[in-house]
């Protein structure tokens, strides 16, 4: 199969290019269509799909850290919560325009993630997992703390109003928020994809693969890990900020350790170290619990657990890993057909890799 990839002639390469381009155009069309569909759904469906988009951003953040960076965080729900509270407090106490609160939440979480990450990344895998777990457990308690009740609303939390639809657009507020979330997600996904394909992605993965080799080529591994932690927290925090706008409420118990665990489930099921994996993971954590509820009102967690175990067993590399494999199969099939058709003509064997 691999040799086939090297032996492709010029015609094969062209044909291959066409096939690849066709596949990527089809993917883009499918994505755009999929994004537009919810606008015709019921208000509840629009709301649900907005949450999927938001979860996808949160998972993108966690996947950067855990999938690409190899550092497990059991407490990313905390950054989601801090992002949400930042937006809520800024709107509620200072009347900041809601769109402006998104970058603010991102910056707060960037700083928080970096500062937390600087010492934490020196811990090995298991201890880092514990330290982040502690972060996830502590946040709800901190949010209930009396001393900051004036801003956070204590156990009551903060209720927000739905932002108005601008420019007289013919959209409901829910549809408008869906579009906002989608635009933010599209931008962040594109940036993440570009960065991870270039020098920065190489450095992050290099540190994960071999810290010793990374430091021998001049990479500051501690700084890289802390920066990854910060950017990861920023993305998850922006997702939290969007969720505050959509849910119109933040409370200490919205961001429990269970949220952190679901995020981890999401990246594993969606596919570690994969940009598209975040989308599949978000669909999973949004819909599978509801589905489980429909299947068995008595024991939804049991159903959820079974579905989770089966998915991990059937797709060890997540949904995106499965798709990658399917794509490789499809190309191998095209190659095989192609080489059958050329063996009938006299051709010079091409040199490997030329």
């Amino acid at each position, binding site marked *: 199969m691999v040799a086939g990839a*090297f032996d492709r002639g010029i015609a094969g390469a062209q044909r291959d290019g066409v096939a690849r381009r066709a596949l990527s155009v089809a993917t883009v069309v499918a994505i755009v269509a999929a994004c537009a569909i919810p606008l015709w759904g019921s208000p509840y469906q629009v709301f649900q799909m907005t949450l999927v988009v938001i979860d996808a951003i949160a998972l993108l953040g966690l996947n950067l850290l855990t999938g690409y960076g190899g550092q497990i965080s059991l407490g990313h729900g905390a950054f989601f919560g801090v992002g949400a509270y930042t937006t809520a407090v800024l709107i509620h106490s200072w009347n900041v325009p809601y769109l402006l609160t998104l970058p603010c939440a991102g910056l707060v979480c960037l700083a928080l993630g970096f500062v937390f990450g600087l010492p934490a990344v020196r811990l090995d895998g298991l201890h880092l997992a514990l330290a982040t777990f502690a972060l996830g457990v502590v946040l709800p308690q901190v949010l209930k703390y009396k001393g900051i009740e004036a801003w956070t609303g204590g156990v009551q939390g903060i209720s927000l109003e739905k932002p108005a639809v601008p420019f007289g657009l013919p959209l409901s507020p829910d549809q408008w928020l869906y579009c906002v979330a989608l635009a933010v997600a599209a931008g962040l996904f594109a*940036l993440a994809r*570009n*960065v991870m*394909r*270039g*020098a*920065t992605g*190489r*450095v992050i*993965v*290099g540190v*994960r*693969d*071999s810290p*010793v*080799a*990374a*430091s*021998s*080529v*001049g*990479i*500051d*591994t501690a700084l890289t890990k802390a920066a990854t932690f910060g950017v990861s927290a920023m993305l998850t925090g922006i997702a939290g900020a969007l969720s505050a706008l959509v849910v119109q409420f933040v409370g200490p118990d919205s961001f429990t350790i269970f949220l952190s665990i679901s995020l981890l489930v999401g990246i594993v099921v969606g596919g570690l170290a994969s940009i598209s994996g975040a989308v599949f993971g978000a669909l999973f954590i949004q819909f599978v619990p509801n589905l489980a509820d429909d299947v068995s009102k008595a024991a939804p967690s049991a159903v959820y657990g079974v579905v989770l175990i089966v998915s991990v067993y059937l797709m060890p590399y997540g949904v995106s890993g499965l798709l990658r494999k399917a794509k490789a199969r499809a190309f191998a099939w095209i190659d095989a057909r192609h080489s059958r058709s050329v063996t009938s003509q006299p051709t010079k064997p091409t040199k*490997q*890799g030329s």
Partner: protein
Amino acid sequence: MLSCQNVRVQFGGITALDGVTFDVAKGEIVGLIGPNGAGKTTMFNCISRLYPVHGGDILFEGRSLLAEPPHRIATLGISRTFQNVALFDTLTVADNVILGAHGHAHAHAKRRFFGEAFRLASALRAERALADEAAELMAELGLESVAQRTARDLPFGTRKRIELARALAARPRLLMLDEPVAGLNHAEIDELTGFIRGLKGRRGLTVLLVEHHMNMVMGVSDKVVVLDFGRRIADGPPAAVKNDPEVIRAYLGTAS
């Protein structure tokens, strides 16, 4: 160029290096040999700042390395390979070699974060330049045909060449090789020995070489330093070291 002075390292009760002193002059190939457990790799790890040094000093071009963090060593001009081959396993061969230049291209790498995020022409150009440089090195080491393969999937001999290409990508002035020919077959050993000898003339590199393959070390080195149980027991031209009674005693009973 490199001067190790009375270097001492302890692991719990074991003294891995017990006041080791030797110099490496610019443009030389220096062999560092000794029986298993003599402290050769430990010496490399001290120079790379991966191990703490408990006594003595290590100077590179007159500057003490002990004040530098590990990731500064490459930028100062020292590259290395590892005895057990430490590659970036999930990256392609090309990406492994490109990362080798990180210490060199460091300033650009930071600026490129935003450039690449928004796909600016300058960032893409920088990436292209790095890729071209890596391609040249890969061609030199016969790695072109595997450039886009994942490092993990390749055989041992190829992995060793990838590691060497990555070390050279940093354009070092001092190259440290930890057992570069261990585990290779005869043809591969001859080829690599020729390559290492060629480095000296062509790139004006200085090489510090740890190796158990005696014919190879004695053949390429200008000078050989011998360690035994963390002590330097000999230091001189290969012909003299080969006949040194203490060296012969240290190696007695071990394959040489």
